[in-house]
């Protein structure tokens, strides 16, 4: 479920014709920040706000570099990815962080807590899907992803919109980290590793065009469900689960291939 929340963000990023591979590190960083604040006895609400705020700030850094300095998002987020990852390593030295009891499942019983986590993810998905469809902001994201210059002529500010999407991505990574946090008694400083690939794969499999401007969040949900079943399916067919990453990569390639062939056809 936490991955679904992050996938919402990555879908928006890709629809606006960008990419963010730093979300795994953002996720880890937010998880540790939430964990540390919680472990120091502050109320849960503070942890949640701290995690989301930290995520938004990290997203803002990406946003400034990409939107205002016009740097390619792949390189920017590659650099921030390693920066946060290493900062975390320096800070936590790879230690497991044990969490106070009160934070487990928001201090509720496991079934109730689980329901809360799942509902938050789904409410967010539905909310974001509605916003993408029914709020101007959502339409702006599609517009800049389709054609930034046409968007500018239509009076939309592509820079501000891109910046906003990155900030939102960070905040969602923070929220995802909190939802992940409450599921286990400990938190690892590398808990977000690989999240970027998982979510990007889910998005492109779910029909979000890597060339921007197209895709829906329900597609992302479907992509997520499909990929989540890769491992169980491998087990079912008595195949070792080590193929997961390779399949993820293959799926990304096939998805861009399909997209590339489609846009080639459109050009003719």
């Amino acid at each position, binding site marked *: 479920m936490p991955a679904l929340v992050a996938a919402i963000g990555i879908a928006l990023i890709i629809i606006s014709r960008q990419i963010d591979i730093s979300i795994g590190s953002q996720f880890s960083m937010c998880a540790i920040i939430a964990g540390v604040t919680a472990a120091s006895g502050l109320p849960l609400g503070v942890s949640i706000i701290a995690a989301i705020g930290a995520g938004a700030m990290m997203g803002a850094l990406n946003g400034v570099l990409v939107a205002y300095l016009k740097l390619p998002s792949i390189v920017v987020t590659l650099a921030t990815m390693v920066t946060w990852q290493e900062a975390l390593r320096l800070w936590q030295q790879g230690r497991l962080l044990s969490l106070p009891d009160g934070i487990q499942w928001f201090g509720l019983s496991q079934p109730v807590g689980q329901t809360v986590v799942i509902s938050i993810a789904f409410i967010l998905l539905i909310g974001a899907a509605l916003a993408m469809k*029914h709020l101007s902001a959502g339409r702006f994201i599609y517009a800049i992803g389709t054609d930034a210059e*046409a968007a500018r002529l239509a009076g939309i500010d592509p820079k501000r919109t891109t910046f906003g999407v990155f900030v939102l991505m960070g905040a969602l990574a923070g929220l995802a980290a909190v939802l992940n946090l409450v599921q286990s008694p400990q938190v690892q400083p590398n808990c977000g590793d690989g999240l970027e690939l998982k979510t990007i794969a889910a998005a492109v499999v779910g029909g979000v065009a890597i060339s921007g401007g197209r895709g829906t969040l329900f597609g992302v949900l479907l992509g997520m469900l499909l990929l989540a079943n890769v491992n169980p399916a491998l087990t079912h067919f008595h195949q070792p689960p080590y193929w997961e990453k390779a399949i993820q990569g293959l799926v990304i390639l096939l998805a861009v291939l399909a997209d590339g062939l489609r846009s080639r056809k459109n050009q003719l």
Partner: protein
Amino acid sequence: MKPILKLTEIRKSFGAVRALKGVSFELLAGEVHALLGENGAGKSTLIKVITGAHLPDGGKLEVAGAEVSHLSPSKARELGIACIYQQPALFPDLSVAENIALRLKKTGIFSRVRWQQQRANAVELLQRIGAEISPDSEVRSLSMPEQQLVEIACALGSGAKIVIMDEPTASLTQKEQHLLFKVVRDLRASGVGVVYISHRLEEIFALADRVTVLRDGESVGTNAVDTLTESQMIKLMVGREVASIYPPCEGAPGKVVLSLKNLGCAASGVKGVTLDVRAGEIVGMAGLVGAGRTELARILFGITPADTGEIVLDGAKITISNPGEAIARGIAYVPEDRRRHGVILEMPIAQNMTMAIHPKLFPGSILRFKAESLLAANFIRDLGIKAYGPEAPGGSLSGGNQQKVSVARWLATEPKLLILDEPTQGVDVGAKSEIHKIIRGLAKDGLAVLMISSDLPEVLGMSDRIAVMRGGEMVGVIDKDQADAHSVMAAALGTNGKEVAI
């Protein structure tokens, strides 16, 4: 009556090129004001100034009597200025209704999108212009004319007081044109001022109240349409005397180098082109922007290969499927867009000059710097290129000298056929006549030259024969002694049924 839009002495330069040299223009409420001029006369720049896409360097812009400075696209829209661009600026992935809505009014980030209302609005607007387009279809699935109609619906729906139409009928069918005319008349009746740009003179007579003619970035006069005849209008557009500063042609042309038979390419809209070009001859290619001249050149250079007809070079039938093949066969193409295609601005001019002859100059792919700079130095001397040396980056040169570098690159390939696309666009007067001398000199040395130009005096002054294209087809080839500005322009515009001598 007070004008709703008034431009006074608007100036705009792009570096050394002065696109607008003090243009004044006014538009009244409830009039259709035609803007007329040759390619490159400054119409597009003027429109972009009015819509806020370009900031003018000087002059005054008043909307409804109030001076406006620092106009931006969104501010222009707030002031009630709408523009239908020649190339629709729509979002291909979004639906028609949504495209219309996005263009209509600026909304806050968190305002709701009212799909029902948006759709109803689109239906109503499309009905008003009589377009049979579903508001729910994605724009990418629409044809070019349909997209144009969506653009028109956008402008209509924005309740604009000033509507600019840049060649709106260029791709419309007869029926769609009639609907459009009705829309324009309705707009006029409701007090909207329409700036109407078109190359079709009959449309201007049918629709416009007044006409302003632009020439070389200046307005040469505003007249009521009914006081002018078609031929007076053409005269105003062409204006200049064809000066005798062009180098004279000498000697008779030789054998046929290039022969095109029924050549066409569906993807770029060129069809049935038949043309011969002989050694030692300059064939000028006249026509309006979008007439298919550059597209023809791109076919000959293998960028968009031909799918019908045949190309015969030096008596042998050939196919050309990529630029490398074209170069190997002795075809050279000096492209129109110098900064994007002609010269790589960041690279030294020596490297630019040798770029098309890598296999020939550098056997085994190994660079020979001495040979390269020797070759460059020779061209710099022969063509009179002003640069501090072969190592000067292309971007440090003036437009005219960049063009000479681009020409040098292609002369280095020792071609049989040289295609020049707008060789003197954005080049100052001095460099222009130098380039003309170079081109004539090349023809004298036996090169077959195909010169695309929208500069009518240049075409008339330089060419031995003039081929005119319209709508992707060759509509006539005129001999030098029979060609004058009027006949070429008339053929390019396709006015009056008078057949042109072929």
